[in-house]
């Protein structure tokens, strides 16, 4: 019991990491696209939990709203739209399998070793240090807003234009051609 109390944050981290990684593996391994999409959803929710553990409460909310809400619905909608019943009977993997699996495992091994070597044992800063703006202690969302709308206003505007362009592009791509209209 004492162990549970003393290491509660670590245990929660391990649980959330397991959920995210199981979801990520499911995306690669599950045959049915719908199953892969739901597994991706589990992964997104696990990552949202990890954000909360790292004092990123605002980002966790955005992650749940945008990814788990918006992007997932988009994916599932397209999977339903494209006939899955026919699609999943086809070959699901590109042959040969070995190079892809080897590249994935080597990437993981190299980067993980590098990370442990470079960062091993370092703990994070105090949570208060994150949200102090001009000497005043703010909530996470408020502190992010200060940075976003003061220091990073230009990237914010640029990215909003990019979103508009993507929206127009998606509408143009998705629209059916009318009779007699040239592509």
């Amino acid at each position, binding site marked *: 019991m004492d162990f549970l109390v003393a290491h509660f944050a670590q245990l929660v981290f391990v649980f959330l990491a397991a959920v995210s990684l199981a979801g990520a593996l499911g995306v690669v391994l599950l045959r049915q696209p719908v199953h892969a999409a739901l597994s991706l959803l589990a992964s997104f929710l696990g990552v949202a939990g990890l954000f909360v553990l790292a004092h990123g409460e605002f*980002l966790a909310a955005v992650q749940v709203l945008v*990814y788990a809400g918006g992007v997932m619905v988009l994916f599932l909608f397209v999977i339903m*739209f494209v006939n899955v019943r026919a*699609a999943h009977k086809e070959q699901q993997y590109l042959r040969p399998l070995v190079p892809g699996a080897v*590249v994935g495992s080597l990437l993981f091994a190299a980067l993980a070793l590098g990370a442990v070597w470079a960062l091993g044992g370092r703990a994070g800063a105090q949570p208060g240090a994150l949200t102090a703006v001009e000497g005043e202690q703010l909530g996470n969302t408020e502190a992010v807003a200060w940075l976003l709308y003061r220091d990073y206003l230009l990237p914010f505007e640029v990215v909003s234009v990019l979103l508009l362009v*993507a929206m127009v592009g998606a509408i143009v791509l998705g629209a059916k051609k009318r009779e007699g209209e040239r592509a």
Partner: protein
Amino acid sequence: MIPTHWYFVVSVAMLACGVAGLLLRRNFITVLMSVELILNAANLNFVAFARQLGDLTGQVFPVFVITIAAAEAAIGLGIIVQLARLKATVALDSVKEMRG
């Protein structure tokens, strides 16, 4: 206190899953999902280093990354819908017309 390299190892594992999915999957939709995994791994890194360095900038950039991921998903899925109309399949190796 959770050490920063735990976050990094989780993020790297997620990146590796994404890259493996990108290389292995034949279904266009699951390849797009793998790209989302890679972007999520990057976000996890941003947040972990924001915590490590006590600098909130690392929590601002994931907002941009999430926006770009959403835009990319919208465009990619639009292309998939058109591909499904044109060829009645979403298999990547069925698209060979632009290969040199």
